[in-house]
């Protein structure tokens, strides 16, 4: 009821303002009339009576004012007035306004853009109902990653299925298959899953059904579920697709379900889900990623402890996997949040680092605007003091000051959000493949809220900071009135010095991080990838088991294709391999035993990659032959395979301890494991290539010929080969003739992943380039803003000292001494900030180190460079006002005010 009345009156005061005023005036007139009458009765003349009444009343306007002060609507009116006043002031000083708004826009915009990325990529939950409880179940060995083909890795998952920490658990194996039967063959990503995947992810098909229990049994009929994208692309979103057949690697498979559009497991490009048909009684040696759904309240650490306790049971009934082997190899389960795998640790680290740097830029920007406002406040000090002496209440001055800063900050924030959305559009367009989950990156309510909080906080701080006489009261009021342009009180001067030092320090930190990233990018660009990337066309061809049932058919196809390409004009060399260098998805590898090995007691032998290569591959790629010979066509003869292989430098170093490699015998896999591979003979040594990333040193590889040697099954590697064609001209111009050649040979085969070798190398360095570019932009913005801050502060304090300098010059001080004085002041601040910044940068080394490649986090060259740049910029920023001081005309200076 009380509220009601309050609201009613307030509304009436806003909406029917004239009525309210008229009513109040009428009440006042009545009062005056009565008062006049009273005086008349007391015997005064009419004029005197009226004058007395008016005098007592104290003025009509004042009455109105007093009434209005009691009305809440009045404060709204005052806010509007303050904002108008602020806008007028800002328009009067366009230079200041533009500088402040742009500075804020850069700070807030950078922050908004990067926070959107952090929010979308790192903070947004994955699109599964229990995303926070999804964990990856993997294994590690003492040496890091588990060798890919360590036997019975999947057996452990059978053992793990009894674990109480999990609600459900599943294995999955991503791969690629060829779809035929349509207009053109197509190579798509697929994933084989075990039964648990649907309860784990909490997903169900939008159409049809999930797989039946029987369909996971070995030799069950082939069934698939297809993605929403494939359904629309290949079947025109026809609901009758269920039960239709689709050719997967040549096998007819029945479509039983269509997945939802937002199910992207394990990656966004997966188009087919298939049941993983495994025989739990005869588990083979494959390494399979696992994913589990934790019970509510169970942490990944608890789950991991339970699995560690269960693991020894996996050795029961296995001749090969013994408790001793588990012990000696240090094999242990590793359970961690699944979200960590979706966004790699390097991206995670880059994004957090980037955010930290843009926060620094924002801080610098805020300090800049704060000192700009302080400078302005200084020049309006007398006005403010005068106004408060004339009776303006402190809270009104404060409100006005806050209104002014709010208008500034809001303009800056609006421009900043606009800048951020442009930046994000560019990230979405060019960031694919560099940044995961780019589709999730946009400015949403959470981002705007953070921006609003930042901006609001800044507005209040800026509003309060420049007010005169905070807490000092009357003293500063009088000192404000008494000052002439010549003197400033020391506390505000010291405050500005602190601000400038802080800016220089933050700029120094940013520059150090940026410098280290530039050096990292340079080091990565100089990495010897182990091959010559220019003028090479690469593409991939995969053969199905239906069209090419025997290993000999596979070899024959590839050899024919290679021979025809070699005959094309402009081709220098051509070869094919199972995995090109710098394949981010990884290369199969396994522990390698040799007869040149040293005795190992407590660890697995070093792992080496398994690769297949045709004779021309090394010449086409420009991989150097170190010793012996390369593989010949005769080594790959399907009737009489020679069993010859090549190894790389790293294998000779790690597995053979540098002993004579030619004639040595090597085999992948551990001795005594089921299906143990026989020895192969090393006939040559070639250079190493970077297998997956630029940063990781090569692990070494064994190159097998295209076809199976007795007991060495290579078919799983050679069915799908990457071709490398070295040409004299632009590599991509060769592509059409290669395509038509393939079409002639087999129209059902897709040619995919066509690109130049150079672009593969570029893509490998794009992640660090992305981080470097982001950090460089942030650092340059920081440097620019910081130097503007230093310049602004010095220019202002010099102009404040105009009188003093004038007096000193008039008394005979040399202009050069004045210049030196200002320069000294500037450089002192600059050096102090620099020292603090560099020391802080040393403190950051733990956070930065993982982002760096072959450069120390305390790299002296970078630190020296940053010091030089900042001193140079600082000197320039100080020189301009210093020079102005030196050329000051004393007469003019003294006549000021």
């Amino acid at each position, binding site marked *: *009821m*009380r509220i*009601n*009345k*309050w609201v009613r*009156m*307030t509304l009436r005061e806003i909406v029917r303002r004239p009525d309210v005023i008229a*009513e*109040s005036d*009428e*009440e*006042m007139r*009545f*009062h005056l*009339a*009565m*008062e006049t009458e*009273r005086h008349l009765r007391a015997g005064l003349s009419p004029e005197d009576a009226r004058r007395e009444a008016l005098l*007592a*009343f*104290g003025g009509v306007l*004042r*009455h109105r004012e*007093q*009434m209005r*002060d*009691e*009305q809440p609507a009045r404060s709204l009116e005052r806010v509007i007035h303050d904002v108008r006043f602020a806008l007028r002031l800002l328009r009067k000083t366009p230079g200041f306004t533009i500088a402040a708004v742009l500075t804020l826009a850069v700070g807030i915009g950078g922050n908004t853009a990067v926070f959107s990325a952090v929010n979308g990529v790192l903070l947004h939950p994955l699109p599964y109902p229990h995303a926070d409880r999804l964990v990856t179940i993997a294994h590690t060995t003492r040496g890091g990653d588990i060798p890919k083909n360590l036997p019975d890795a999947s057996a452990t998952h059978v053992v793990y299925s009894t674990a109480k920490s999990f609600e459900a658990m599943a294995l999955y194996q991503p791969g690629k298959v060829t779809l035929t039967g349509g207009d053109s063959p197509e190579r798509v990503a697929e994933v084989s899953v075990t039964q648990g995947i649907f309860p784990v992810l909490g997903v169900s098909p939008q159409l049809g059904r999930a797989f039946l229990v029987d369909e996971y049994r070995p030799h069950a009929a082939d069934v698939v579920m297809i993605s929403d994208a494939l359904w629309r692309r290949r079947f025109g979103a026809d609901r009758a697709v269920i039960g239709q057949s689709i050719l997967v690697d040549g096998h007819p498979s029945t479509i039983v379900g269509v997945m939802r559009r937002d199910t992207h497991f394990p990656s966004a490009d997966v188009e087919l889900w298939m049941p993983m048909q495994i025989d739990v009684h005869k588990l083979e040696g494959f390494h399979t990623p696992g994913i589990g759904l934790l019970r509510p309240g169970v942490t990944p650490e608890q789950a991991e402890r339970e699995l560690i306790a269960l693991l020894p049971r996996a050795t029961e009934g296995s001749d090969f996997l013994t408790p001793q082997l588990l012990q000696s190899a240090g094999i242990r389960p590793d359970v961690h949040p699944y979200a960590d795998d979706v966004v790699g640790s390097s991206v995670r680290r880059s994004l957090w680092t980037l955010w930290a740097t843009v926060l620094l830029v924002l801080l610098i920007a805020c300090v800049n605007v704060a000192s700009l406002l302080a400078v302005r406040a200084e020049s309006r000090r007398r006005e403010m003091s005068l106004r408060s002496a004339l009776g303006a209440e402190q809270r009104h001055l404060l409100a006005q000051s806050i209104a002014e800063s709010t208008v500034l900050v809001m303009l800056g924030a609006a421009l900043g959000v606009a800048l951020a959305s442009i930046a994000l559009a560019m990230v979405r367009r060019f960031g694919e493949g560099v940044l995961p989950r780019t589709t999730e990156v946009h400015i949403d309510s959470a981002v705007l809220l953070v921006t609003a909080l930042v901006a609001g906080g800044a507005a209040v701080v800026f509003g309060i900071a420049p007010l005169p006489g905070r807490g000092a009261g009357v003293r500063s009021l009088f000192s404000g009135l008494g000052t002439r342009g010549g003197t400033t009180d020391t506390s505000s001067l010291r405050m500005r010095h602190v601000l400038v030092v802080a800016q220089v320090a933050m700029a120094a930190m940013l520059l150090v991080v940026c410098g280290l990233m530039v050096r990292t990018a340079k080091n990565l660009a100089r990495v010897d990838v182990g091959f010559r990337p220019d003028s090479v066309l690469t593409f991939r061809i995969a053969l199905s088991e239906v069209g090419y049932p025997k290993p000999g058919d596979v070899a024959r196809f590839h050899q024919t294709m290679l021979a025809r390409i070699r005959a094309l004009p402009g081709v220098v060399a051509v070869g094919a391999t199972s995995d090109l260098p710098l394949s981010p998805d990884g290369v199969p590898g396994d522990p390698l035993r040799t007869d040149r090995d040293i005795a190992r007691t407590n660890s697995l032998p070093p792992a080496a990659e398994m690769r297949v290569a045709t004779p021309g591959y090394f010449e086409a790629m420009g991989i150097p032959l170190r010793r012996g010979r390369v593989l010949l066509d005769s080594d790959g003869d399907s009737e009489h395979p020679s069993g010859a292989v090549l190894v790389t430098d790293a294998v000779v170093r790690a597995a053979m301890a540098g002993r004579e490699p030619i004639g040595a015998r090597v085999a992948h896999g551990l001795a005594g494991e089921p299906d143990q591979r026989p020895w192969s003979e090393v006939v040559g040594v070639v250079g190493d290539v970077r297998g997956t990333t630029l940063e990781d040193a090569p692990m070494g590889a064994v190159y097998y010929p295209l076809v199976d040697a007795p007991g060495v099954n290579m078919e799983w590697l050679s069915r799908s080969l990457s071709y490398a064609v070295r040409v004299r001209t632009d590599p991509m111009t060769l592509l059409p003739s290669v395509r038509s050649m393939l079409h002639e040979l087999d129209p059902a085969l897709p040619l995919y992943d066509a690109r130049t070798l150079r672009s593969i190398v570029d893509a490998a360095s794009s992640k660090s380039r992305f981080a470097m570019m982001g950090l460089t932009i942030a650092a340059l913005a920081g440097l620019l803003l910081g130097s503007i801050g230093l310049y602004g502060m010095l220019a202002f304090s010099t102009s404040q000292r105009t009188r003093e300098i004038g007096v000193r010059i008039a008394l005979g001080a040399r202009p050069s001494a004045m210049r030196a004085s200002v320069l000294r002041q500037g450089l002192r601040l600059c050096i102090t900030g620099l020292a603090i910044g560099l020391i802080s940068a040393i403190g950051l080394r733990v956070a930065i180190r993982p982002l760096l490649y072959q450069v120390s986090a305390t790299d002296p060259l970078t630190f020296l460079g940053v010091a030089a740049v900042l001193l140079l910029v600082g000197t320039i920023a100080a020189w301009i006002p210093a020079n102005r001081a030196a050329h000051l005309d004393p007469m003019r200076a003294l006549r000021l005010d």
Partner: protein
Amino acid sequence: MGESSTEPLRGTIDLLVLKTLTLAPMHGWGISQRIQQLTSGALEVNQGSLYPALQRLERRDWIDSEWRVTESGRRAKYYKLTAAGQRAAGRETASWRRHVLAVEALLAQT
């Protein structure tokens, strides 16, 4: 601000107005006159504080207002206590008495 001795203490004006209105509904001028009479001229309520106070009290729904015609035939805004105002007047009176007693006790000590 120059406070004269006849001006009521700050904060007591609400109480004075409420108390005056417990007798009968009254217009602003009448209220000021009555306060002066009842205190034998010891307190004079300044118009500058009376009318904002009336507005404030009405906003709190302690008093209500309506336009009426006086005996002399003029239109005037009459104020009267609401039920909440009655209760508030009692509360404020009690609280004022406690306050006065406390201050008296202190003054007697020193």
